């Protein structure tokens, strides 16, 4: 058991994948000589050489397209897009090519591509660099969307993602990189299809993922002091959603609060809420509540950014408003 950062866990995962399968390579902006914009791939160029740790031009559409081509050609590419904000430039490649080619080829060509990208706000990067667009990607059939929120998942999700015959997008929330936690020395692959209960409770279910998991856990801790047992579910796999885990919890607690850093309208939280209503309606004792980001372009000023993002106090208040 050792204490590692989320960043280090991610790097271990990359190192393992590069070491295990020679078809695996990493490419993206500044991943090589600079060591990655968030220093995730620091040292990997020296370790694995420029053939496998490839710096790309500032052209998301081109290098994601190249990744799709490499995957079709039998490689196992890991494409790093610096942040979700820039992934919009590659959206056509992801949505129209990566996600559809298996279908368009009548099942002949699958695209075993992994795309990693940073997401989220909270670091004063203002309106153009603070998006949480996970919900957009979860709309697309043909891709799997993962959101590792713990050190263990940062360490364990990459390899199974590479083993998936179809495109997988991994969202790494920017505030998590410096987050430290204990990691077993033999930590390895985890499942990439189920949600996980991160904190047990019987009175209310708080559903979170990625950057909001810690918010939810902190809220649960405070709620214990108020005598409210909050069960915190980490969605982990955002597409396909593990509805069963969510529903089985809500059936017990009868109340649900979804915490989502995305904007409320059309968000992933809306989908989760809808599924709870569809599948656990007669077990609900209160409307499903949501705690989302304010529907504004993310402000730069620290106090305004804090105001716009879901905070622990917001979650606690939402839980109490449900009567628990």
């Amino acid at each position, binding site marked *: 058991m050792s204490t590692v950062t989320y960043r280090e866990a991610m790097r271990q995962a990359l190192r393992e994948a590069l070491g295990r399968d020679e078809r695996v390579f990493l490419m993206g902006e500044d991943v090589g000589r600079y060591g990655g914009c968030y220093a995730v791939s620091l040292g990997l160029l020296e370790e694995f050489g420029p053939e496998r740790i490839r710096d790309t031009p500032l052209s998301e559409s081109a290098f994601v397209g190249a990744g799709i081509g490499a995957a079709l050609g039998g490689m196992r590419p890991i494409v790093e897009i610096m942040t979700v904000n820039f992934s919009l430039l590659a959206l056509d490649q992801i949505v129209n090519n990566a996600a559809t080619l298996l279908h368009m080829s009548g099942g002949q060509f699958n695209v075993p591509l992994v795309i990693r990208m940073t997401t989220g706000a909270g670091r004063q990067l203002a309106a153009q660099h603070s998006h949480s667009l996970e919900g957009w990607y979860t709309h697309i059939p043909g891709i799997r969307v993962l959101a590792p929120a713990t050190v263990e998942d940062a360490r364990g999700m990459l390899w199974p993602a590479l083993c998936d015959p179809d495109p997988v997008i991994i969202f790494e929330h920017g505030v998590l990189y410096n987050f430290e936690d204990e990691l077993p020395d033999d930590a390895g692959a985890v499942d990439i299809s189920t949600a996980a209960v991160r904190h047990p409770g019987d009175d209310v279910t708080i559903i979170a993922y990625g950057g909001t998991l810690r918010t939810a856990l902190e809220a649960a801790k405070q709620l214990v002091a108020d005598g409210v047992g909050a069960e915190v579910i980490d969605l982990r796999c955002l597409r396909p959603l593990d509805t069963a885990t969510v529903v089985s919890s809500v059936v017990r607690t*009868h109340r649900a609060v979804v915490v989502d850093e995305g904007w409320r309208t059309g968000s992933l939280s809306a989908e989760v809420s809808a599924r709870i209503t569809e599948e656990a309606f*007669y*077990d*609900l*004792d*209160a409307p499903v509540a949501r705690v989302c980001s304010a529907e504004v372009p993310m402000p730069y000023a620290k106090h305004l950014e804090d105001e716009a993002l879901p905070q622990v106090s917001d979650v606690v208040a939402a839980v109490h408003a*449900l*009567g628990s």
Partner: protein
Amino acid sequence: MGDFRMPSLGADMDAGTVSEWLVKPGDEVHRGDIVAVVETEKSTIEVEIFESGVVDEILVEVGQHVPVGTVLARLIGTGPSAAHTAPGASVAVAHEAAPNVPSVIEEGPIRRPVPTVAATEAPAEAVGPVVPAMSETRSAPSPAPAGATGPGRVFSPVIRHLAERLGVELTSLDGSGPGGMVTRADVEKAAKRTTGPSARRVRSSPLARRLAAEHGIDLSAVPGTGPGGSVVEHDVQLVVSLATSEPAARPATGTESVTKVPVAEEPTAAVVEGRQAAMRKAIGALMARSKREIPHYYLSTTIDLSSASAWLERANLERPVSKRLVAPVLLLKATALAVARVPEMNGFMVNDESMPSEVVHVGVAVSLRTGGVIAPAIHNADKLSLDELMRALKNLVGRARKGVLRSSEMSDPTITVTNLGDLGVEAVFGVIYPPQVALVGFGRIAQRPWASDGMLGVRPCVTATLSADHRASDGHRGGLFLGEIDRLLQDPENLR
């Protein structure tokens, strides 16, 4: 052949529990006999029958909770003459029928056997069974509404379909379309009117609804504590636990070793609390409806009671202690007599139409020790002597507090009097008990400086207030009414 149905014992009653049958099949019953005891949220009430005949069959067993209008028993040998009597008493009947099926009232002649009204869920269907044979208007909605009010009135298929779905009687509608055609809007408006607030949806969580259904609990009787006053799981569980804690049944968790839990004879504190909560809720719903629907106006006047007090003192000297009169009896009697001068204070408001009553049944607000208030009637209070009125009042208050009232007392007051004088308040501005149109309040009788004939003296005075329905009367008439009460009290000989 006649049906004896669960009566509506007040505008706030949707359902009741038969707690006792006083007759059995084969028994002969006469109009006015008390045949059953019904428990409502407010109290236990002896229910009279309004038809004579022989009990053929009892359809609802003791302990069953059924909606208003449910047939409780069938009678045989009841002729139509027995069924449609007493035109003089018809208004009182109107009151019972009114809260749930206002449309029935428009029929004019109303048969005496009141409690035929069906539950609020299906107000329109209720029209069917209630309409007496003599009614020349309503016929069942049929594709060709022959005999409708305007001969040869035609309704489009869409309208007929809509009316049927919403349970609206088309022939009763005034069309607002071209040539008096009934439009969709007319039907929808009528549907809204007939469903009214009593059919309001209870805000409750899906889980609470499911649990209530599983345990056969009426959600409208469960006080909600959830967000926005909604009924949530906890509220239903509370009622379930109250219900199950009453009779011995406690879930057997162990095996054979389970011993019987001793049953308390008295209702437990929890049960009483539950009843109180239900009553609070019932009162709340009715008063909210009153304030929402009735445009109240308020008047107040201070009345010099010196001659009334002096008269009372003299009158009581001649009476044994047990038969002495109290001042509130004079106030009650004065109120009952004053309606003769201003009849629109006495009666009901039905479908926005004032229906004065020919009889005067004065509802007396009685506060219950367990909390809550109930306003049963003293029948024909204007015709009773003061001694009779005193006896009736004592009797009524006693029975109300014990929770044993008769159905007619509960359901047919035509005007209500509330007296909070014993609490020391100076004036009470009451909330009208729908569908009544007026409520008279009396405060404390106190010694006050009083100018009269250019002289200042100290006189016993009382402040009388009137809360009245502005749809039924105006302030001018209200003023006359209070003035009449004042006038009557100045010469107590008037009250004898």
